[in-house]
């Protein structure tokens, strides 16, 4: 009984102090609302509208500029998890260097170009910041252990949006199959043009090494 009383006794002054803080903060909010609701007696309406417009441009532009900075190969390879694993693997593939000199950089395949989808993906990517801070894949071994899980996420995303990021560059309409090898012609006619399959169904592991493929459909 007495042991239960002691923490209660020491605990009682603390809530009072906190209540005071809360009350003061609440008072500040009420004052702020009061100021915001009252018409301005100093600035004219035109000045306020113009200032709001300029501030809006700066905020919106700043937001989008910052967003675009996170959408560059340089930003993506800024952390060693990406630089030493997936980016190193990309360098050997046709999406990095090829005869026509077109390079697909990280966001071309991994970030949707459409604005709302991009914001949704960026919010998802905050999980990756968490992973970086807590070192969930900070060694090659940890990365290869989780590669299947990470790859499954990307495959599911490509499958769900009908390989949208592939089709930003490769469209079935502008694909000249007479320039393709006989095997490619046959496969694209049977599966791509009929819509039976989407790009990622056959073209897994074209930009990065594969995870353990046992159990993945179409693989042994």
């Amino acid at each position, binding site marked *: 009984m007495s042991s239960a009383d002691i923490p209660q006794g020491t605990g009682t002054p603390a809530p009072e102090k906190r209540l005071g803080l809360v009350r003061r903060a609440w008072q500040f909010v009420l004052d702020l609302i009061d100021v915001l609701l009252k018409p301005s007696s100093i600035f004219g309406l035109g000045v306020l509208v113009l200032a709001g417009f300029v501030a809006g441009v700066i905020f919106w532009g700043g937001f989008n500029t910052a967003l675009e900075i996170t959408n560059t190969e340089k930003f993506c390879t800024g952390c060693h998890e990406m630089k030493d694993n997936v980016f190193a693997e990309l360098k050997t593939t046709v999406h990095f260097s090829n005869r026509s000199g077109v390079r697909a950089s990280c966001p071309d395949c991994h970030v949707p170009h459409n604005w709302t989808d991009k914001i949704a993906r960026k919010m998802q990517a905050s999980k990756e910041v968490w992973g970086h801070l807590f070192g969930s894949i900070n060694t090659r071994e940890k990365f290869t252990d989780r590669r299947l899980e990470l790859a499954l996420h990307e495959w599911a995303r490509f499958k769900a949006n009908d390989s949208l990021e592939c089709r930003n560059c490769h469209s079935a309409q502008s694909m000249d199959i007479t320039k393709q090898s006989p095997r490619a012609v046959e496969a694209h006619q049977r599966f791509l043009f009929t819509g039976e399959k989407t790009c990622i169904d056959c073209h897994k592991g074209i930009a990065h090494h594969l995870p353990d493929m046992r159990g993945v459909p179409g693989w*042994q």
Partner: protein
Amino acid sequence: MIKKLAMMLLAASLAAGSSTLLAQSVSSSLRGPAPLNEEGPAPPMQPTKNTAEKEVRNYPEQPPVIPHSIDGYQVDMQGNKCLSCHARARTAESKAPMLSITHFMDRDGQFLASVSPRRYFCTQCHVSQSTATPPVSNDFVDIDTVLSHDKPGAKR
């Protein structure tokens, strides 16, 4: 004194000999006209044959050659891209030839349920073909041609 002179002569003749050797250019060899002490320009890489047309084997035991490009195909512990088409269960969809039953045998001739580990790495035996013209001609004739020489009336 004589010994020393002999050594000097030997050294001088060796130096002279090696310099003439190095300066020589051998134009008849595969390395081209580049002198022996220099590296010539690398010949351009030729594209891989990509017709997907089955090629005749030169002898029955020959591993069939790959008539298509295999650039970027991953064959390792994680997966085998070749088996995406050539595995037994995949051939109906891909129309590719199934890898033969010998690939399921272990070295004692016992059949396993799936591809034997010793036959897993396709490019150990099967290779894609370059379109380059061979620098050295080949006069190989297959066994059918050799046997036909023995037939009565055949040209010997």
